[in-house]
């Protein structure tokens, strides 16, 4: 039980925590825009944390091959970080352009 395992576990479980929160948010929030909020933010953060945990865990037995694999996972992290919020923004933008009104307090869930 060394310090690396603890870091990996902390990262992985906080990632899982955020992913679970995202899933609950998608189910619980009342309308299109607010549902996209957890889908865009928490999923990105959750997968970033989980993937960072993979990167560190992969470097447990250090070698050039393991370093290359870790770099590839880091690249995935970078691309998720770029693409996922942009996709969410694009969907919200499409909703605004289509004229969907946001939910206000007191209305029924949609």
């Amino acid at each position, binding site marked *: 039980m060394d310090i690396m395992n603890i870091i990996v576990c902390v990262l992985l479980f906080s990632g899982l925590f955020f992913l679970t929160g995202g899933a609950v948010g998608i189910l619980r929030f009342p309308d299109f825009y607010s549902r996209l909020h957890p889908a865009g933010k928490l999923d990105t953060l959750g997968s970033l944390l989980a993937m960072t945990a993979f990167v560190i865990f992969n470097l447990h037995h250090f070698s050039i091959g393991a370093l290359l694999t870790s770099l590839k996972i880091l690249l995935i992290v970078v*691309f998720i970080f*770029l*693409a996922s919020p*942009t996709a969410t*923004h*694009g969907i919200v*933008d499409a909703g605004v*352009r289509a004229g969907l009104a946001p939910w206000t307090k007191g209305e029924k869930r949609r």
Partner: protein
Amino acid sequence: MKIVGLIIVAVTGAFLIYAAADFPAWSDPASPASTYLSPHFIEKSMEETSVPNIVTAVLADYRGFDTMFETTVIFSAGVVCFFLLRISRREEPESRYYRHVLTGVTIQLKEGYKMPPSDDFEQIDAAWTPPDLIVKTACRILIPFIQLFALYVIAHGHHSPGGGFQGGVILGASVILFAISHDLRSAVRRMSEKLIAILCAVGVLIYAGTGALCLLLKQNFLDYSVLAGVLHVDPITARSHGILMVEIGVGIAVLATMIWIYNNVSSAGRYRQGL
């Protein structure tokens, strides 16, 4: 009529299920496919073609003829979309719209008038909507990486999952992403319809041409080992290179077809923004 159709479907389904009962059991080692063919591919494909990825070796070498017609199917899908959807004549006189790039001021010119080409104005469609800046910028950053990855997938089909079909789809998707994030007109300006049509045919031509080259060198169609003389390598490496050649052909055909289908379907054949 519906009843008759239902009966036909039910009877055909029953026959299929009846026939499926004669299949060898799931993962049966004594089934004909596992007795002769699979062991040969698994044991011999490396020494016969020097391709570590057995799937690629089977797809493009042992069953190259099959894959050639798969490429032809994709080619015909693109051509069919073109013939069914493309509308080249205009129903009513249309006016042209030009947008000043810096200020966003749009001017309308009546039918018959045209603006001389300049960098300050871009022609836009009637249903044009301003592309979102965030999406546009993010796609601009991502598209080169997507295309680089697509080339990697095509070139690395020998060693890892991938190949012409997958790489071509990713390449086509990058251009479609450009058309979504900017507008269709700029995408068509960068990759014209004529170029797409030519590329579509060139991809199939490369595949069939590789096969025909083997035929000209007095061997069977798509038997790449005779390319050894042309490529100056030993026959086994020649088979590996032959696979790469046809994969490139497949990639080009799939790339062009993806964009062609998208352009035609997304604009209902008018090549104007908005359905």
